């Protein structure tokens, strides 16, 4: 979970740098062509990471929409009181704080959530009125896109801690088997062990995966793997954030926040139209994933990206991190969304 929050901070940086006009905090909207339905959106804060899904949801849902930003309220119960007065047909929450507030105070009101790290920790199975979109991209979605860019990928090395990531490794192994890739998963108990483990296990592998493992996903280990894999002409691929690619990994797949907003909008539309009760959706994985590829790194390590793949890459980075001023110290550290 720490790794996810760390990477979400990077994701926030990317959104901020992407100059998406923020929704003014504390304001409410009246958008959509229909006043037939009322929808309330509650977001934990004005963190830029929520902007794209928020905008996309507003654009796609045909309803009168009010937007609340919890960080603007000294007492979040003010939001609940207002929602109780308005009685919207549905509430869309963005972020963990907003989800917890909705879970604990909105009774049976239908709630759809998104942009919540590790939603399984909130015991949502006891709340049938709540459904949503998980933040974690399924391994098969990630690896399909990695293999699309690097079809020669055959043997992948990763490091994990049994306490944190046994389930993730099992899912990854199953996904990789479908794609004809062998997984060499090496258990480590400290981040420092990665140095020795890399040296021991690098023979014969063509790629290293920086997965969602809290122990490994830190600036020091990332910088070590980045430099070692470059030296050894091994592909470094990462989960959770495109910032890894900006900082010198070959490629990354992370949640596509634009897709998440659209996905939540379709769920909301179906619930509002009475086609499905919100609880019918459960917690679903996000659609697709944002594939970001650094072509400067590809050139450096000598891989050729198939021409047919370019139209399916979300973003191409053309400069190496060493060429970008001020980034040598490592990735930016931002407070993760709550």
């Amino acid at each position, binding site marked *: 979970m720490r790794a996810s929050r760390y990477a979400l901070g990077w994701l926030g940086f990317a959104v901020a740098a*992407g100059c998406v006009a923020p929704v003014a905090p504390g304001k409410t909207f009246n958008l959509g062509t229909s006043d037939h339905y009322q929808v309330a959106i509650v977001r934990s804060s004005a963190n830029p990471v929520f902007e794209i899904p928020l905008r996309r949801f507003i654009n*796609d849902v045909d309803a009168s929409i009010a937007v609340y930003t919890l960080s603007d309220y000294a007492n979040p119960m003010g*939001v609940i*009181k207002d929602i109780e007065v308005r009685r919207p047909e549905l509430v869309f929450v963005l972020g963990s704080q907003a989800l917890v507030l909705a879970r604990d105070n909105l009774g049976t009101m239908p709630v759809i959530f998104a942009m919540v790290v590790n939603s399984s920790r909130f015991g949502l199975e006891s709340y049938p009125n709540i459904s949503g979109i998980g933040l974690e991209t*399924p391994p098969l979605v990630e690896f399909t896109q990695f293999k699309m860019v690097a079809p020669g990928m055959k043997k992948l090395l990763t490091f994990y801690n049994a306490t944190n990531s046994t389930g993730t490794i099992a899912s990854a192994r199953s996904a990789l088997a479908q794609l004809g890739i062998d997984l060499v998963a090496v258990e480590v108990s400290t981040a420092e062990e990665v140095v020795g483990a890399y040296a021991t296990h690098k023979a014969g592998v063509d790629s290293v995966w920086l997965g969602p493992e809290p122990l490994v996903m830190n600036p020091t280990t990332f910088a070590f793997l980045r430099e070692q894999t470059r030296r050894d002409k091994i592909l470094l691929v990462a989960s959770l954030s495109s910032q890894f690619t900006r900082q010198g990994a070959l490629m990354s797949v992370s949640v596509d926040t634009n897709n998440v907003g659209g996905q939540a909008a379709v769920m909301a539309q*179906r619930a509002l139209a009475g086609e499905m009760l919100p609880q019918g959706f459960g917690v679903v994985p996000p*659609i697709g*994933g944002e594939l970001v590829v650094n072509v400067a790194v590809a050139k450096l390590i000598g891989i050729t990206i198939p021409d047919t793949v370019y139209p399916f890459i979300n973003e191409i980075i053309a400069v190496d991190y060493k060429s970008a001023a001020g980034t040598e110290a490592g990735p930016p550290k931002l407070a993760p969304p709550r």
Partner: protein
Amino acid sequence: MTSIEKLTIRGKRGDVRLLLGACLLAGTVFASTASAEERKELLFYDPDGNHQAIVRITALFNSYLRETNVPLNFQAIVSSDNFSRRLSTDTSAFVIVSSPLLSGQGGKRFKPLLVPDAGGEAGVHYRKLLVGKAGAVANDSMATIATAGTKEWAVSLLATASIKVSGTRLISVSKDIDALLALSFGQVQQALVTPSSLEVLRTINAAAAGQFVVLAETAPVLRSPLCLVSGNASPGLIKQLTASLKRMNENPTGRQTLLMLGFSRWVPFTPSMKRGTK
């Protein structure tokens, strides 16, 4: 009760998209403002284009134009309203525009010059496939269809295959592969994608692609041609631009730009290319 302030956003839904698009493109716009006053524009408006990479495409296209000394700014447009507004200025000398717009009211101003060619059988036309899993049927009013590009464009493409979307939910995703993966995971019931994306998935994950059946095929659509906007460019500029684009695949920046757009080269437009296109 909290203080409630209503923001009046003109045009409601369309303008939210416009605002987002404008912001996404802001970096490119700022980068070219120094010469925007003097330079004419080459507008790019393709609802079925590679929108997720539009910022990169814009940067590459402008680099190529600079490298080949063509005095034009490439400007991507993401909404029809904005496209109409930009066209009304006399700085818009050329457009790369979705081919169905050529036959519309505003299309009379456009004179097609070149057409992108994807090579192979695909050539200068493209089709999209409506794909589902075994047992799925076209015209399923309960289906959710994932598609890259705008929903409006998807509706018009589906209409060419006699697919009605009444009751159907359309979800616009960033790229075709997302749509296919969503179908594979059961997150949507159908996907409207290019045959090439299905081929790419088949080469990586034959098992996933093997679950899919093609439910319908849209009519062939001419790829977005480069057109002259009548009266807005000199013969010299027309000659310079067309000569430059015909050689685009010979230059590394040009080739990269074409790859991002999914094309291999530009070829001269001939009226017969319009045949078979709806």
